[in-house]
């Protein structure tokens, strides 16, 4: 009964979203203000019914109702309650419902917090979001309902959640990622509303910007969590594989980052308008492309759920309709925003332009390299795969170039800045950064690894540029404290955001270049030395939990004679799901991680082990958190809270 009510609530939500998609648009064309006013209650109704539907699904999971197919597939009576709940987004159908709930949540937030915006603009924004919600609710109801029953053979117990997903990282990663993905629907809706209504001034940008920033923060956090989860949970210490599914989230991140910067120009200088609209459309199109890649079943990965092809075709249809409709609208309506902005080559605008060109190029290249192996067999050219080296060869130089220009860009003023007083003084710091980077690399590793040198040059370059920028704002003058307090949060957001990028780069470069790993055979009492650490295997023991049994190795690590830590890697047998999982033993310190994983049992009670020492890994997680903090600071800027200055 509960499951049927859930489906009913979902259908009610569908009706609300269809009305939300339709009424305000009719109202806008016919100038019926009562229809425009319908947008907000429809957005509320849609959210309430999706919430009810979602809560009923939670209920079905918590009560172990295995007559519901999705519960039987994802859950098990032995799962702790928090994994029963997170099991909802462990599969396709529940993920879609969460996706919809989050989309409705963003829609509701726009409806509630946009009192200062002109009514018709908000109504059209909400209507566009209603269209997206309606399309995906239809999709969910007809192809992916999580409430479907199995009759008459109701299983006694469920198949259990995929053990890889029984983890805190996976409780958090999908919701954060969906918050980010779906958040870009708001930017998209603002862009479409601008095209429909013809309103696109700096106030429009001032409103579109914090929403975009928030979506970006969630997407950053979602990607970071995914990488962190892969690092410690997959058991082998990889953190980025250029897997199509990872790329599916990275592409909207890259284009979305470009959008965030382009919106700055639209807000501050009323410039880049047409370009901003195009970026908002393409960011969302890439979100849909990502959804298609993950949900269609053309990929095989932990993210791609077993599925039927109509789902993929339908998402592709939604993607193509969105693209054709919005680009058509763009071609028809965008020329009205053509601008005559001119700026000096040495201005912040021109460097933001470079930023956009590089980021969009990165996005396009990653998209092409991701799609190529999928298209290749379709063209009858055989099976190919594109591995990490190809991505690295293209991605890394462009990223280095981006960071180099970033060092100039964050120093410059809007409109026109003097090359003489900014560019040349900054360039002096380039040889200094290079010399220092060489020295630091040598001190660290006693060799000159050029990639490490490059990453340090970039980090120092951004550091000096940030200090120079602060000096220009009087931070190092006599009343520096006052100057520090006078700067708006968005200024610190910019500096921190760029710092976060270089921290991630440093972590990624050091771990790739300096990590050492060795596969060894070990039994009780054996020891191995790696990178100055002595790994001593004490003994094995058997550890049990409600849904798994594990062989555990107790391994002590010494540095010289000094005891460092005891690691307890496990090989877990999830007997209900019938899967074996590697749980690594990890000790994390800012400057390095010790990482031990158990391979397979060999003869004489020995096991194979992989021992790894991985330098600077936490820099990547720290950098990601700083990026998120930076985005939040940008949103907190006072000017977004002044709501009273329209008309």
């Amino acid at each position, binding site marked *: 009964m509960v499951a049927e009510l859930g489906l009913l609530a979902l259908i009610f939500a569908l009706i609300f979203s269809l009305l939300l998609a339709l009424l305000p648009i009719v109202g806008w064309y016919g100038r019926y203000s009562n229809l425009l006013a319908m947008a907000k209650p429809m957005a509320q109704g849609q959210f309430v019914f999706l919430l009810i539907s979602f809560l009923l699904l939670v209920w079905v999971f918590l009560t172990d109702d295995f007559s519901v197919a999705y519960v039987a597939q994802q859950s098990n009576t032995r799962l702790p309650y928090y994994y029963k709940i997170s099991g909802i987004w462990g599969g396709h159908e529940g993920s879609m419902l969460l996706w919809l709930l989050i989309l409705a949540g963003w829609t509701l937030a726009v409806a509630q917090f946009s009192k200062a915006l002109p009514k018709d603009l908000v109504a059209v924004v909400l209507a566009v979001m209603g269209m997206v919600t309606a399309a995906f609710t239809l999709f969910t109801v007809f192809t992916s309902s999580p409430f479907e029953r199995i009759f008459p053979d109701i299983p006694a*117990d469920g198949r259990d959640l995929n053990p890889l997903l029984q983890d805190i990282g996976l409780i958090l990663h999908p919701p954060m990622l969906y918050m980010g993905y779906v958040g870009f629907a708001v930017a998209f809706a603002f862009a479409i509303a601008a095209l429909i209504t013809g309103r696109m001034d700096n106030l429009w940008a001032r409103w579109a910007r914090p929403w975009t920033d928030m979506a970006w923060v969630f997407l950053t956090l979602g990607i970071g969590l995914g990488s962190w989860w892969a690092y410690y949970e997959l058991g082998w210490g990889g953190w980025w594989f250029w897997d199509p599914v990872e790329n599916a989230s990275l592409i909207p991140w890259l284009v979305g980052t470009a959008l965030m910067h382009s919106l700055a120009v639209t807000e501050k200088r009323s410039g880049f308008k047409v370009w901003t609209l195009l970026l908002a459309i393409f960011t969302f199109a890439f979100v849909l492309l990502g959804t298609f890649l993950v949900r269609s079943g053309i990929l095989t990965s932990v993210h791609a759920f*077993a599925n039927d092809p109509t789902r993929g075709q339908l998402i592709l249809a939604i993607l193509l309709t969105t693209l054709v409709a919005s680009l058509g609208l763009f071609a028809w309506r965008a020329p009205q925003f053509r601008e005559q902005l001119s*700026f000096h080559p040495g201005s912040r605008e021109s460097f933001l*332009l470079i930023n956009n060109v590089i980021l969009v190029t*990165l996005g396009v290249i990653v998209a092409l390299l991701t799609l190529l192996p999928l298209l290749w067999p379709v063209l009858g050219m055989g099976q190919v795969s594109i591995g990490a080296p*190809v991505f690295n*060869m293209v991605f890394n130089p462009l990223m280095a170039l981006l960071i180099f220009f970033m060092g100039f860009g964050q120093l410059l003023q809007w409109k026109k800045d003097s090359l003489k007083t900014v560019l040349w003084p900054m360039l002096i710091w380039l040889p200094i950064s290079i010399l220092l980077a060489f020295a630091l690399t040598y001190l660290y590793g006693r060799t000159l690894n050029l990639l490490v040198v490059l990453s340090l040059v970039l980090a120092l370059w951004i550091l000096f540029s940030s200090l120079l920028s602060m000096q220009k704002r009087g931070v190092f003058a006599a009343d520096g404290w006052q100057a520090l307090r006078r700067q708006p949060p968005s200024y610190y957001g910019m500096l921190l955001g760029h710092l976060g990028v270089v921290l991630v780069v440093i972590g990624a470069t050091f771990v790739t270049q300096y990590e050492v790993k060795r*596969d060894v055979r070990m039994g009780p009492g054996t020891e191995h030395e790696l990178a100055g650490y002595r790994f001593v295997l004490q003994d094995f023991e058997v550890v049990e939990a409600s849904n798994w049994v594990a062989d555990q190795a107790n391994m002590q690590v010494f540095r010289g004679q000094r005891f460092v830590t005891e690691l307890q890697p496990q090989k877990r047998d999830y007997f209900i799901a*019938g899967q074996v*999982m590697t749980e690594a033993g990890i000790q994390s310190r800012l400057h390095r991680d010790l990482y031990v994983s158990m391979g397979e049992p060999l003869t004489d009670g020995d096991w194979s082990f992989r021992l790894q020492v991985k330098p600077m890994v936490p820099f990547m997680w720290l950098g990601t958190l700083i990026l998120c903090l930076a985005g939040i600071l940008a949103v907190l800027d006072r000017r977004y809270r002044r709501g009273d200055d329209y008309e």
Partner: protein
Amino acid sequence: MKKHRKQKLVVILMGFSFLAAAMTLAGFALKEQIDLFYSPSDIHNGLVQHDRSFRAGGLVKYGTVQRDPESLIVDFVLTDQAHDLKVSYQGILPDLFREGQGIVAMGELNSQGVFVASQVLAKHDEQYMPAEVKDALQRSGGYHQEDHPGSYQYYQAPEGSSYGR
């Protein structure tokens, strides 16, 4: 030409030349690094170049996995049911590696015709078969849907399942 027009032209040219440069870079990278996939039959038919690494895949043949008792060397045979390929690998195998499972290995063919793998990949979920392996089996005629249920038949307790344990 007006100033902003000229500026726009410069910007567009810059953008395109940048994209072109990046594509060229990608092209070179691809030429060097793209990993082609060959099935045991392809290799038997001599389609493979000997001086570069590639991906090979198939089912791990039953009863062929042999471990060296002293080291981490493992030998096994991959098959697409039409032809076999001997594989040698040193290191730790993925958790889902087992006989009968579809896997993909990355490596080079040595002069004795043994595929020396540097990496062995098995998918996260035993229900899945790598797309390349499925394709290879279909080409060799060794693919039978009933052996490899692609869809998740969650309501039928599979053999040896531990429902209610």
